[in-house]
């Protein structure tokens, strides 16, 4: 059967997927509730992140500039989200239509990260009513192997955590001039992120009786529907998204949400670990080691380490 992105799944494969799921197997060797391993590559220049979810590869760039705030929200900055589905990922993602998947993914991203209040927008205020930080998150899907939605949200979140904006201070003769400091002058500042929401999608089979988390390419195409739950490790449900497919009972939805929360706990641990090791690497990169020549040591003088 043809999928929305023009990719093909034979009826042999579709029948096998269902048969395997009934026995608790998935075609890539996973269990029904196993999320694929996530690989993070956080950029060294604090500008974004790349995420590999199985073979789905997503890259996000974050930029920030000073702008005037919107009229009624004078003390809040803003974050805007853009998703681009590259034809590299799937050839039918070309042109303005982009296979119809892009607006849905962007909407999911906005609900997951903006509407859940993950990023503190008040912390982006520089001068109330005059200047705020306007952060732009550009997500590019480079390679699609199922579950683009979750990969996009994951990558945008990782990028927002890895991003550093320049430090600002107020100066000038009357203290109202905004000075933006370069990275060499003052350490750049991370964004204030309140909590880590993760988007977790389930492919539905047999009218919702069988679920498979983080669907692969062929599972995405031959399932009977999708349910996405955006949750964090605290068990807070930020969004539930069901746009298509077979109807679900409340029990089935709750079952998915519970599975999503336990998945979110694992994902949170992994993401925190990735951020921490990235932090250590960042600091190590910036430490300038000063080797002391032997004769200076013999002179028993204190040599300042820069």
């Amino acid at each position: 059967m043809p999928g929305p992105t023009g990719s093909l799944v034979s009826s042999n494969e579709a029948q096998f997927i269902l048969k395997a799921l009934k026995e608790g197997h998935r075609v890539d060797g996973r269990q029904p509730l196993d999320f694929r391993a996530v690989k993070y590559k956080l950029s060294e220049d604090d500008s974004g992140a790349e995420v590999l979810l199985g073979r789905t590869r997503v890259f996000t760039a974050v930029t920030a500039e000073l702008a005037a705030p919107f009229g009624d929200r004078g003390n809040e900055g803003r974050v805007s989200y853009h998703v681009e589905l590259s034809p590299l990922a799937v050839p039918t993602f070309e042109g303005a239509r982009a296979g119809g998947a892009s607006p849905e993914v962007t909407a999911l991203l906005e609900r997951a990260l903006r509407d859940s209040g993950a990023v503190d927008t008040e912390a982006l205020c520089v001068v109330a009513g005059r200047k705020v930080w306007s952060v732009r998150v550009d997500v590019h899907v480079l390679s699609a192997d199922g579950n683009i939605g979750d990969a996009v949200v994951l990558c945008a979140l990782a990028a927002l955590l890895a991003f550093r904006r320049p430090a600002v201070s107020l100066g000038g003769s009357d203290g109202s001039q905004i000075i933006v400091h370069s990275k060499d002058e003052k350490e750049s500042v991370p964004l204030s992120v309140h909590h880590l929401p993760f988007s977790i999608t389930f492919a539905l089979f047999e009218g919702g009786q069988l679920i498979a988390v983080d669907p692969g390419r062929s599972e995405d195409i031959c399932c009977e529907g999708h349910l996405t739950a955006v949750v964090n490790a605290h068990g807070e449900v930020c969004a539930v998204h069901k746009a298509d497919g077979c109807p679900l009972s409340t029990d089935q939805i709750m079952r998915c949400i519970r599975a999503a929360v336990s998945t979110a706990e694992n994902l949170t641990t992994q993401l925190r670990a990735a951020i921490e090791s990235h932090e250590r690497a960042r600091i190590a990169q910036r430490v300038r080691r000063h080797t002391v020549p032997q004769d200076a040591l013999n002179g028993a003088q204190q040599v300042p380490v820069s």
Partner: protein
Amino acid sequence: MTVKKAASLESEGKVVLPGDEVLRIPEHGQIRIGPGLQQQGSKIVATRPGVVRVAAGSKVWLDSRQRRYVPAEGESVVGVVIDRMGESFNVDINGPSTAALPLLAFEGATRRNRPNLRTGDLVYARVVVAHRDMEPELSCMDVHGTAAGFGPLEGGLPESVTTSHARRLLSQPTPVLLRTLAGGLSFELVVGQNGRVWVNAPDTAATVAVANAIQQSEGLSEKQAATFAQELLNGLQATRAVKTE
């Protein structure tokens, strides 16, 4: 100077990029150039990135990782039926265009006795006509008109690999990965030179294991492939033992 000597002196085993000269055409003797190479005047030039290989003394070709299949006459492919147009099926063989499989290109097929192929079915066929500017044509019969294993594939699980990995799976002697797996499992395997393989085993777990093993074993050395296959078999036996307890 024989070609083999010329190639092994210069570029055998070397990685070349499109446009690189691989060989100068010698004055005496014959060379056969295979996929990835093109003659330009008195030179033979690479048209794809890959590793230069020499076989049987006079055939030079490029070994490159490629997912898209370029149809070649005489090769066997695993295709997916997309629809039926008139007197033939439209089959996707993972190439630049779909291929045509005539309804009568099956053993014993007549106008009254049509083959039982529906949209979405997997089919194992032979490439009969493959020309750069034409849609390729397939057949489910060998040159003598017998089925010879071609035809629809029932059940099982298809998997996608690069075309070079598919060729390696088909090479003789049988690759160590398949030999090891066959030692512990019984399964049916059909390898299409278009990068699509089909696995069928009596139980689901074995089918999934073999299909994934084949896909993940690309690029592994002989020793690594043997270890990988053995660990997979051990893992399968362990889960089976747990189930029967």
